[in-house]
């Protein structure tokens, strides 16, 4: 579920959202209309992810209405992973208790950093202090499974400062950590700053070193580095939701700009709340585009995902002689490992995940 509302927009983020929270009610209605259309095609789910945007800007009635409506349209059971994304400054005891009562069993907190200067630089609504308090509340509030989103590779950020944030994060005992290197996205205030030369990102060598440092630190603490930016405390706490993206598992995305996938087809909704509401109001589909993947494209995506995740890809997926020779070279240089008829990226290989599919033709 893509909740396209935020109280304020963060300068690095290019996800679609608007700040007019007064329109949430209309949006909930539209999403539920959209949901009923997929009732037959997607009857059962083992994961529901309420993301955004900032889903925690919804008030109780709105959230309750949304989840009830979705339960009417689709089948969820007790084992369903039900994740809510929350902004630290929205966290209260009551809110958490209310989420629990609605069946939410996993929380994802957009902390980004526990360093005051960094949180401010990232334009977050919360302070470092608020972030700590929020995580404490979540940890004490009975959510055994909560995850934190963190960001690193910030301008002038020292390795020490980043490791401090990580250490702090671990002190709360999270089940999951997403650690994203700051990326300058298309049309954002940060991209303008960057173009003007006012956003000194660390150079490539330093980014690589930070990445390896992060992996090293977290795996040392017992975490599984299962995707470029994702770490889980144990096999049981991997994000079921995230993993679906990388295994060509069918998923349905609702709300403006949400993406869906089934079989060999991918489609995405219009990236505009107005257009989305209008489409559903007029009983037309809010789909903005779609693609049917050819066998070659599916294969390319399998490589794309395979080199990003600990599951790698099947060795039989690589068939040309030249590519097999390349694989041996990559093995020698420590970027991949071959065993059990599968190809696995190493941590060092993760650093080249975008390039590896290019080096292997098929």
């Amino acid at each position, binding site marked *: 579920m893509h909740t396209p509302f935020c109280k304020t927009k963060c300068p690095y983020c290019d996800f679609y959202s608007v700040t007019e929270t007064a329109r949430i009610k209309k949006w909930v209605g539209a999403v539920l209309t959209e949901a009923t259309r997929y009732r037959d095609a997607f009857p059962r789910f083992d994961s529901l992810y309420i993301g955004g945007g900032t889903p925690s800007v919804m008030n109780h009635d709105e959230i309750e209405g949304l989840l009830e409506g979705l339960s009417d349209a689709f089948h969820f059971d007790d084992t369903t992973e039900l994740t809510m994304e929350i902004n630290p400054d929205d966290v209260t005891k009551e809110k958490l208790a209310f989420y629990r009562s609605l069946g939410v069993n996993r929380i994802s907190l957009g902390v980004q950093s526990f360093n005051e200067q960094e949180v401010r630089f990232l334009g977050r609504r919360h302070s470092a202090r608020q972030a700590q308090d929020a995580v404490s509340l979540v940890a004490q509030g009975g959510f055994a499974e909560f995850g934190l989103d963190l960001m690193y590779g910030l301008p002038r950020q020292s390795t020490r400062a980043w490791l401090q944030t990580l250490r702090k994060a671990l002190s709360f005992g999270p089940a999951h950590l997403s650690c994203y290197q700051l*990326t300058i996205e298309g049309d954002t205030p940060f991209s303008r700053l960057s173009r003007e030369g006012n956003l000194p990102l660390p150079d490539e060598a330093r980014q690589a070193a930070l990445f390896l440092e992060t992996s090293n630190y977290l795996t040392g603490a017992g975490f599984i580095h299962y995707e470029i930016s994702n770490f889980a405390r144990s096999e049981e706490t991997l994000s079921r939701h995230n993993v679906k993206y990388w295994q060509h598992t069918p998923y349905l995305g609702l709300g403006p700009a949400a993406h*869906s996938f089934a079989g060999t087809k991918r489609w995405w909704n219009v990236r505009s709340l107005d257009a989305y509401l209008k489409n559903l109001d007029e009983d037309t589909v809010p789909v903005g585009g779609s693609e049917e993947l050819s066998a070659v494209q599916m294969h*390319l*995506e399998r490589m794309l995902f395979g080199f*990003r995740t600990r599951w790698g890809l099947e060795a039989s997926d690589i068939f040309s002689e030249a590519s097999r020779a390349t694989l041996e070279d990559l093995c020698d240089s420590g970027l991949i490992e071959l065993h059990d008829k599968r190809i696995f990226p190493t941590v060092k290989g993760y650093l*080249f995940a975008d390039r590896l599919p*290019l080096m292997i*033709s098929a």
Partner: protein
Amino acid sequence: MKHIRNFSIIAHIDHGKSTLADRLIQYTKLVDDRQFRDQILDNMDIERERGITIKSQTVDLPYVDEKGREYELNLIDTPGHVDFSYEVSRALASCEGVLLLVDASQGVEAQTLGNLYAALEHNLVIIPVINKIDLPVADVERVKTEIDNELGLDPDTAILCSAKEGRGIEDILRAVVERIPPPSGDPEKPLTALIFDAHYDSFRGTIVSCRVFDGTVRPGDTIRLMSQGTTYRVEEVGIFRLAREPQKELTAGMVGYIIAGIKTVSDTRIGDTITVDARPAPQPLGGFKDVKPVVFSSIYPIASDDYQSLLDALEKYKLNDASLVYQKDSSAALGQGFRCGYLGLLHLEIVQERLEREFDQSIIMTAPSVQYRFYLDDGKVLDVDNPLYYPDPGTIKSSEEPYIRANILIPERYVGAVMKLCMERRGVNSQMSYPTPGRVEVAFDMPLAEVIFDFYDKLKSITQGYGSFDYEITDYRESNLVKLDILVNGEKVDALSILVHRDNARERAVRVCDRLKDEIPKQQFKIAIQGAIGGKIIARSTISAYRKDVTAKCYGGDITRKRKLLEKQKKGKKRMRIVGNVEIPQSAFLAALKTDDE
């Protein structure tokens, strides 16, 4: 015959030759105004874009003078570039007179002089025409002085015209009729017809353009091309209007075409004499020579599996351009390709552009080279135009390279800069003259290799467009030559090797190393680029290794975008060549050849 005039227009590039030809055609109502397309004789896109004539075309203009007498004026169009000077000379040999066109704002230029000499050699009547008199910067009096002093022609005979506005066209046509003599010749004598051009037509084969001097040729005749002794049966003869117009015969004095089942233009030689096999002329017309290429470069397909398609394209291209020669070539770096010989650098560029545009080929061209001569210890003499065949330096007794005599005409204020340029390019034996006040003619002996790159561009830029340049190849002179190799991670990229004068080797090596550094993308390992003579490294640059190539996020909306980027990169990879373990994009090969500093 009294009513025939055969003439040509000669001019420096940009002085308005094609525009004037257009006006003459329009005036004689050969084509109606509505159908008229600018520069109608230049019917290749590239000709119209560059404002030059590559393939000359001929047109027969019907003209009626004020007394009602009908004339046939054969305008034989000529290519306007020094690369094609032999074609120009054969076109001139087919005329009795020329219009010598001079731009009223630019005045006489080096090529105007060159053209004048060529016309004088053929004893042609020369009608000076001052064009572009409509321009605000036109200076007719100055140009008249130059015509007097630099060309030695009577400035009072010059006709003023503006081809653009159509002024003076009637005067020109009248002058052609009155001043240029009608052709002479005897229709009863054995046939002698001069081939001055040939075109390929996919339906009819080769269309031979010729000027008949003596005799008559008719369909059904068996003709003989005298230099080769080959014979063909004539299917059709005719004259050129804008389309071909068949005639019963072509006879002494006429200009027209012959179709005789000649398969390709390469089966004919420009400058050759056509006669009738049954009653041959005792000897051919003079002036025939087999033109030899002077600039050489290899062409490789960007994707090695496109070799066959490139071969097909070259074969088709060659149908219409006999002056291009090619043979198979192969490079360790680029695979199979072709070594090509061109009449000059412009010719090379034309071939490259036409292969890409008209034949849809993606190609890599290696650095142009001249033909060097090596005298070996064992007494053998080796002509080498391809660095691949550079002999073992231990066996070379001496080496030579071709020299030109360059003539440069410039306003006086640029003398210093031009002298400096020529000396940097190893110019020697300079000579200066002052044909008119304020203008200087500079002559130099220079190695051809020094002008085939960017000499003309440099000259234009340091003289702000006022410098003009003409040259002829003179002789071979001793030269200290070395082979410069480029190595990528220790592997020689043979396609980037060049033969250079020892004094230029280091500078060239540094430049190529720097260029490649900018063009070769980072890879997982450090890449060393080196320039070397023999085993000695004389220049180097380094590309640091890739440290990271991964994006942080890959969720719903990112996947399609990422896959599309990958698809694009995969396509780009097909256009890369792998040397050792380094991927070198096409752009790197192109950049390495550029000599400019931009």
